[in-house]
């Protein structure tokens, strides 16, 4: 039961993009087309779950026993960067179809603050291993959900007549604000 609450809270109430403001660069960068948004969403789910688990293990079995918590930032970013590289090589060799689908989004994930952010949240909240697994997955699903919804809206906005200064990124941010307002309604649910 607790896990369901945790999942709902991570997907809807504390949506990583719209309530915690993490991962906004790919949010705006890859949401112009539905295809790229879907690709990015899947790449994030894949990497975020793995990164969440591995950083949890690194933190619990390496950093804490050695009293090296202050190296967390460096340690986590190294884990994430090498993980992304590894996943890229692995997919290229063994599942080329998936690799072609995710394409350029994989390397970009290294600098996606949602990944690093969730890893830090897992550690700061002192989640257990299973909780970290659930929260990583749920945050990633929340990311994908918001990204795909936003891409859908943005494709419609492209056809609308927008005042010149508001074009492109500006109107995208205002749109994101309105979607965020919709997600805001979930506040207090959990």
């Amino acid at each position: 039961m607790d896990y369901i609450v945790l999942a709902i809270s991570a997907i809807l109430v504390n949506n990583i993009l719209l309530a915690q403001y993490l991962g906004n660069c790919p949010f705006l960068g890859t949401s112009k087309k539905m295809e790229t948004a879907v690709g990015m969403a899947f790449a994030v789910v894949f990497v975020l779950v793995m990164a969440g688990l591995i950083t949890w293990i690194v933190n619990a079995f390496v950093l804490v026993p050695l009293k090296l918590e202050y190296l967390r930032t460096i340690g986590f970013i190294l884990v994430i960067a090498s993980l992304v590289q590894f996943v890229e090589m692995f997919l290229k060799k063994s599942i080329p179809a998936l690799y072609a689908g995710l394409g350029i989004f994989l390397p970009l994930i290294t600098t996606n603050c949602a990944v690093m952010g969730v890893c830090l949240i897992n550690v700061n909240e002192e989640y257990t291993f299973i909780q970290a697994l659930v929260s990583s997955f749920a945050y990633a699903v929340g990311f994908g959900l918001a990204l795909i919804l936003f891409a859908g809206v943005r494709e419609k906005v492209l056809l609308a007549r927008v005042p010149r200064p508001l074009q492109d990124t500006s109107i995208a941010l205002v749109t994101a604000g309105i979607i965020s307002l919709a997600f805001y309604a979930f506040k207090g649910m959990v």
Partner: protein
Amino acid sequence: MAKSIGQEFVKGLWEEVPPFRLVLGLCPALAVTKSMANGIGMGLATTFVLFFSNLLVSTLRGVIPPKVRIACFIIVIATFVTMVELLMQAFTYRLFLQLGIFIPLIVVNCVVLGRSEAFAYKRGVLHSMADGLGIGIGFTLALGALGGVRELIGSGTILGHSVFGASFEPFAFMVEAPGAFVGLGLMLAFMNLVGKK
């Protein structure tokens, strides 16, 4: 076209100011600008990291092999971020608590990595220092301005001082998540309006 050191500094203040002109580093810009003080604090922390990572990357640019440059940049940046984190924990503990996980997240701020990649790796040390400082201060001003607007409308205060008096009903929308997006979007539109003659 080579610019002088002074011009490299100044361009960060208006011409290429993040997050408006270079749409990078949005996450901290949205997340910490609930108040002006937080925005400026975050901006200064980022400036510190930008300045020193630009300095070090440009000093080491002959040594870093191109193939693994991104990994090297990230390690340089992560080192300075850890320094900022520890310094802030020691000297500005309240700000440290308010900014929370966004201080370690400077490491994945695309502005910092972007400057290493696009500028410091190719240019001399002095130019890179000027560039880092300029972009950093531009980022600080932008975050301060956005924080100021959101704080003024959302809680009726500037840097914690009441502006409108007790009868003002704060428009709390602006300090919540949706207001961050809308506020940044409108500021971007304003910049476009002023910038394009």
